[in-house]
């Protein structure tokens, strides 16, 4: 058995669940995943890895934990999957507990490491496979599992009830009208050009972001809608717990909401993992090669609005500001230039980071890690000292985080490492600096 790399954390989702496991169940579950789910790709990766350790320096957990090899990408695979394969699935509950800790809480599946591996081995995929094994055994950190339960019941991440969702939109529409005349959140408008979708925390904790988009859409004169029914949430934590059946159910709702509303495209709010779920992992499980209705991320949308002049900038944001690049849209989709374009277009003093673009570090919160809950906050924040150093070096006072996980993760880092910075979503900058046309100004 491996030594716990971090301080022992009590998590009933893991500790209580492993008590119910039998050796037979562990063995049969693992072998089913190894033979049915993953066989070909896994075999290639395992045969290819030469244990060179070049991937180590890619991982913020490794770098931030004083280069402890247990936190290196290959180290994480070695402690989990290699052992599982070597022992042909004959491992015990204690071992599964370590697997869940490592795969669910000490890897953001950010894929930075595969860029550093000479063979491009997708280590994140291997650790997701470990998550899948744990999930099938019912071993998932408590808060992550609770989020998955919320998705399964409500099709959203935050146990938002159907009436609460519509009610939040309606009061945010009113608030938006105080700033921009006739700003609306049109519900269930069949045939609109755009369906705008968000993640559960927006109606739950950050409802002003819904008001922001109502203002932005009104100023840009867009034809848009939001569904009043389930399918409005584009986020997907079951994708990260390893519960792919629930992942698929949630994604199907989201895409079918767009098909039902007859929109031309989906614009997603500022969230990175949701983009991955909606554009890649979800559709693939459901047999869509591409999303049936094209999807763009908020960064692409704001780029479009600013570049085309649909939104004009009245005055730029003055304070020094830097940016966090969400892995799933920058490393995963190459939106780094668009992100810089909108930052420069709206901010007077944009301070870039190093390393950047696809080489940027993960926020440490993504991949479901922050959703593992408060128990794991300490190891998560400790595991991303390099991000704190990177942000500090910019001298910025604000960090724009066009992703909810990045937003919360960076806030924790800012607080823990006393960076004296504030996080903002891009839409918060945009509504401050955009020009409101005369006819839309509230007297």
């Amino acid at each position, binding site marked *: 058995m491996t030594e716990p790399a971090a301080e022992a954390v009590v998590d*009933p989702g893991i500790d209580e669940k492993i008590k119910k496991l039998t050796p037979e169940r562990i063995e049969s579950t693992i072998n089913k995943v190894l033979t049915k789910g993953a066989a070909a790709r896994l075999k290639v990766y395992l045969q290819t890895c030469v244990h060179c350790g070049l991937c180590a320096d890619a991982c913020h957990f490794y770098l931030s934990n004083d280069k402890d090899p247990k936190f290196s990408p290959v180290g994480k695979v070695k402690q989990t999957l290699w052992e599982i394969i070597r022992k042909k699935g004959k491992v015990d509950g204690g071992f599964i507990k370590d697997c869940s800790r490592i795969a669910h809480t000490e890897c953001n599946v950010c894929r930075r490491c595969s860029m550093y591996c000479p063979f491009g081995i997708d280590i994140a995929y291997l650790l997701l496979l470990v998550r899948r094994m744990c999930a099938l055994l019912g071993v998932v950190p408590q808060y992550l599992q609770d989020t998955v339960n919320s998705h399964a019941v409500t099709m959203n991440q935050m146990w938002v*009830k159907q*009436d609460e969702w519509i*009610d939040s939109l309606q009061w945010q529409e009113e608030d938006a009208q105080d700033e921009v005349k006739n700003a609306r959140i049109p519900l269930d408008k069949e045939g609109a050009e755009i369906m705008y979708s968000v993640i559960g925390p927006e109606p739950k904790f950050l409802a002003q972001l819904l008001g922001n988009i109502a203002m932005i859409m009104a100023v840009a004169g867009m034809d848009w809608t939001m569904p*009043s029914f*389930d399918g409005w949430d584009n986020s997907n934590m079951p994708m990260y717990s390893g519960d792919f*059946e629930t992942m698929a159910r949630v994604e199907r709702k989201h895409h079918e909401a767009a098909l039902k509303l007859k929109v031309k495209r989906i614009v997603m709010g500022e969230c990175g993992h949701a983009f991955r779920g909606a554009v890649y992992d979800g559709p693939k499980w459901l047999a869509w*090669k591409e999303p049936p209705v094209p999807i763009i991320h908020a960064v692409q949308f704001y780029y479009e609005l600013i570049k085309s002049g649909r939104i004009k900038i009245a005055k730029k944001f003055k304070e020094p500001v830097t940016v966090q690049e969400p892995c799933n849209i920058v490393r995963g989709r190459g939106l780094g230039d668009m992100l810089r374009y909108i930052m420069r277009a709206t901010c007077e003093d944009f301070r870039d980071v190093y390393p950047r673009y696809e080489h940027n570090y993960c926020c440490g919160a993504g991949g479901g890690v922050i959703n593992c809950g408060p128990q794991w906050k300490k190891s998560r924040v400790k595991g991303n000292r390099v991000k704190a150093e990177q942000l500090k070096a910019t001298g910025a006072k604000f960090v724009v985080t066009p992703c909810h996980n990045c937003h919360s993760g960076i806030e924790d880092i800012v607080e823990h490492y006393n960076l004296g910075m504030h996080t903002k979503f891009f839409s918060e900058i945009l509504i401050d600096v955009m020009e409101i046309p005369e006819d839309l100004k509230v007297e």
Partner: protein
Amino acid sequence: MTEFENWDWETKEKLISEISEWRRKFPVIHEYVVSNDGEKISAPVKTQEDAFTVCVNGEIWENTFEKLWSLRFGPDDRLTCLCMNDDEWTVATDGETWEETFEYVWNIQFTPDGKIIAVNVKGKNGYRISLNGKTWENGYVEARDFALSPDGKNTAAGVQTKGLGEGDIFGFAEGVWTVAVNGVPWKRNFLNVWGIAISSDSSKIAAEVRVGEYEYTIAINGDIWNETFKCVWEPIFYPKGEDVLVPVQTDDGWTLAKNGQIIWERKFVQAWHQKFSPDGQRIAAIVAPKIGKWTIAVDGSTWNKTFGDAVLLPVFSPDSKKVAAVVKENNRWTVAVDGIPWAEDFDMIWDPVFSPDCNRVAAKAEKDGKYFIVVDGKVGKHGFEALWSPIFSPDGNKLLIKAVEDGKYYRRVIPVEKI
């Protein structure tokens, strides 16, 4: 004669309302809706600060509301919406509100005759369903969506029977969800319930249920099938009787199962939205034989042609012999009939409709910001500002066109060949 046969199929053109006039009268107009028979056009309109009402053919309802949404014509062409005054929500139909008010109401559903209007409600007694203002006695921690039987006698919703504390994954694992029928819960709880269906005689209720974290099956009136699956999608009842048809996922892929037994040999990467033909003899479903290859399977055999992006719900002809569906390839939309797509493609297309004699298929489509009627792939001459799906006359020779042109809403009846 049915209502539909009684509609005016003779008058070639009626200018129902100059909606450009409305724009002069009201500072805010929300989305327009039109009646099934095309004789009325309506929208929520703002009359003054914090006062909304409904405008129908230029006339407004007497009462006003602080909020008003979800306006729609029911099957009997009465006009219904959800409305709020003084923080109390209710349902209004043709200007008459229910006496009962609630903290919130949503999700309007009608019986096929339109006589019963049902909604989800939230009030002091928790979450319930209300039919024409008569509300379930039992309230729940939560009730999501619901199904309404065609005779209006039964409503069934997924309900949460017990509250859970934050992060209570163990309480959740015991099962706190079930189906309540007319407010009365089934005896057994599940991890989840979804996709509720009611049999045509209203006696049986089926739902997808999750009995273990990775074990899915169907429950009928609370009793589950003996078989469990890796995953299931929404059940439907056979048109007559109590048999249930469900897409199920096996180790070899997705297929259809009847009462737990696989009925289609062939397995797919995906299968959903199964549907019976009007005569009840044939079954069509959307299937994907491979990733990124979508088609329709009828009785287990697929169309020869597949489509890369998507295929939407199968539509049977009235004689049950043909199937049409919206299809999408390379981000262009069209309609395919028995697997043969129309030559023309569109920016968007709506569900196809068959003529009563089954020889023609029509649809509303969008191209370059204008809306067109398309019949058998032939695009109509007129591009409209707004258009609703066309309806064939009882003899199949004419089409009812409901359209906005130059700010005016017209109801037109035209020979099919003259589109």
